[in-house]
């Protein structure tokens, strides 16, 4: 067992878990942050995408020993400022208005990948956006509306 301290969505967290326990399980089961989903458990689908120090990672592949002292951001933390006003952030708003979420199970991971893409300065070019979310599988949308939603935010139209 290891004592691991880290920041989740701006709040300090401390857990005592085996070092190889998956970040995904700590988020979902120990911290009750079930917004992050498990789709395959082997890093193929991206449903469990979260930001670790701003980089998008598959939480099913990250052992807790790698999380000590780091900053984790999940879908629950995507709109912290906006949620205090009872609102969604621009990315969530664009997904909602442009129809980019259907069954919703890939959506939290997709949003985090999109956030990382935008934070890295990604623009509205569809090809670049597709590269940015290539690690996140969606079976419902055909990706068209997801790409359009991210492009809309990248172009500043929904900010």
């Amino acid at each position, binding site marked *: 067992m290891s004592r691991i301290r880290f920041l989740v969505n701006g709040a300090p967290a401390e857990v005592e878990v085996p070092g190889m326990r998956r970040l995904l399980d700590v988020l979902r089961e120990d911290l009750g942050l079930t917004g992050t989903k498990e789709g*395959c458990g082997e890093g193929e689908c991206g449903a469990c995408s979260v930001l670790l120090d701003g980089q998008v990672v598959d939480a099913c592949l990250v052992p807790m020993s790698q999380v000590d002292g780091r900053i984790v951001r999940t879908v629950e933390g995507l709109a912290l400022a906006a949620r205090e006003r009872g609102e969604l952030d621009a990315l969530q708003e664009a997904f909602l208005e442009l129809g980019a979420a*259907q069954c919703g199970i890939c959506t939290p991971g997709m949003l985090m990948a999109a956030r990382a893409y935008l934070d890295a300065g990604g623009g509205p070019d569809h090809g670049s956006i597709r590269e940015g979310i290539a690690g996140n599988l969606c079976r419902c949308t055909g990706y068209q509306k997801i790409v359009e939603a991210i492009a809309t935010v990248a172009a500043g139209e929904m900010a």
Partner: protein
Amino acid sequence: MTTRTLPYPPIAPERSAADALVVDPGSLTPGRTRGYPLRREGPSKLTGAAKYTDDLIFPGAWYGATIRSTEPRARLLAVELDPDADWSKVVVVTAADIPGENLVSAIKEDQPVLVPIGGEIRHHAEPVALLAAPDRETIRRLRSRIRLVTEPLPPVFDPELSDHVFARYEIGSGDLEAGFAAADVVVAGEYRVGHQEQLYIESNAMIAVPAEDGGMAVYGSLQCPYYVHKAMRKTLGLASDQARVVQAETGGGFGGKEEYPSIIALHAALLARRCGRPVRMIYERHEDIAATTKRHPAVIRHRTGVKRDGTLIAQDIEIVMDGGAYCTLTPVVLSRGALHSGGPYRCPNVRIRARATRTNTPPNGAMRGFGAPQVEFAAETQLNRIAERLGISPAEIRRRNAYELGDVTPTGQTLRDSVAAQEVLRLAIEAADFERIRAATGRVAVERRGSGEVPAGRLRSGAARTASGIGLALGWHGAGFTGSGEVHIGSVASVELTDDGRVRVLIGSTEMGQGTTTIFPMMVSGELGLPSEVVEMAPVDTAVVPDSGPTVASRTAMVVGGLCIAAARRLRAEVEARNGGRPFVEVYRDDAARHGRTRVDQRFEPYPGIEFDDATYRGDAYPAFGWAACVATVDVDLDTGEVAVRDVVAVDDVGRVIHPILCEGQVEGGTLQAVGYATIEEIKLEDGRYLNDRLATYLIPTALDAPRLTTILVEAPFSGAPHGAKGVGELPMDVGAPAVVAAIQDAVGVWITELPATPERILAALDVATRPGEVRSATAAGTAGTAGAAGTAGAAGTA
């Protein structure tokens, strides 16, 4: 033929009755979605607040696991627990623990919930025993300590060699021999398609919670709550009110959560009953792919007689589907396959023979399209090969043969209204600039062949590393259940004015991403004159909602939507009548305060004039059809054979568009699933076991693999439904694959007759087509070439 009957809030202008209406896609409006309501459950999905099954917490719940066969066919002699392991802190359930019937409720009840001792194991992933423990680690440790003692039996893997027939149909019209005798050209072809996995991103999940009165509730990811409810009553021996099924937020279904959730619910419930506490049965992805149902593989053989001008005169079609080890929904999948197998074309002389047989592979079941994508791939590729042979453009041969109003199908059904085949075809050809692009790709192909640079083995020439092509397909999809299915089910949908003045829709139809919870308030509020936002949706819980039939067959908007509209009209009439005829919107709150609750239950009534004889397969196979055209543009890598699908134009007639964004979402998602089916999605089998039963090895398209999708929605309303809707979910799935395969042929000159069109199959076909000494015309490549390469027997001859 195309009258609009229902003014939904933002509505496009009326068109003349003769035209199908192209739906205005609308404009971006902040706070709404192009002026339409936002996805109702969208905010909870986008913030991570939505609770899918695995997100639900039940204190004290144990974890469940399924012990499965590892053999394709065997006699089960014993289930042995390792005496050296500690079994005191877990529960194990076998067939002997089942209180009711050991059968999973289905069309033919042939599938045991668990294989009994002495019973026959029929596929390698068959459930034999169940294990529950307080934690996952104990499950992991003990599951390998349960040993199945078996006696192997000889398995059958080839559906054509199996002598156990699940279903067989023969449909005929006209005089087949006379048709072939009158034909100028006869073309034969054989087409093969494999399994396809639904691959919802949320794997199957079910939690069973025992009730104090001996009843059982299950919370799960599912499409059809009342299928699960019936299965629980039967196997657990529960009274109707003791079995309760609650749908959690569901992360995709695509048919894969139509009937399989019943068996998972039963497994979880059997364990919960045994240990007296909630049991979580959450499938990992590997188990989900290895054990749950897939799209049926099929072999489809065509022999088609045509006149020189391309007019179809005779179609002889044979279909063999692989049902897998148990019947599940196979008879209805095969039925839909048989009924769609000729394609959306008039032909006076037709024979369709279809059968589905049993093999020792995991059972195949429902997947979006339900038998139609298999046969429409074959029908469209066959027609494209005929066009090539006759030197007619693929667009022209479709214009000459596509159904029009008044045409008669092989079951004798006269197409009385909402026939939009020609409209969707024309719109797709125009929007994709099909003829111009095809002329350009054709010129490049001629130059390549004429350059003398075509190397042996591949069609690589000069500097060009890729070849581009464009392909077209036209399709149809029978709206709602086949034949008299709807009449047998007799679905109920309810609308109520609650005693505290709220309007609530009660239906058993599930939301799994398609937009059920958004469109029903729209349909009902439109009738009552209310904003859609104030109409509530009751939770999908069998203790609350009636049986509205399963959420399948693209029937929800069409059939259940129709019932809700009828219920809302009755509610409005009733309330207005007792309030002096004042509008519902003005009086409903006061009415509720004075009269209490008013609930209207609407039961399905047969559509007027629609009749089908299940015994003879004559009559109206479907109340109406949706029509779709698809144009795909591809680049084929001439060195590797890889296909990149660049652009797809999809034109779909859905009868009535209720919410354009959600409707486009269905077309886009279905189209990409069809592109995956065409290019990369394939299950490889060895001794009846799926070899690629992980997401690392069963590939679906990523955002980089996905083409740019352009969707055009067309409305040719069905006159029998109050709102004209014909359904959208499955229609786009039918046409994507043949369009992609036609585009590949346009690019490189070979017909791929077996899906998916993998690089291996394309390169093999090219190798045959360009073998030294053989004629390298496109026609030769398209007939003898592909047939040999794909291991099939396509051939063309002139009568």
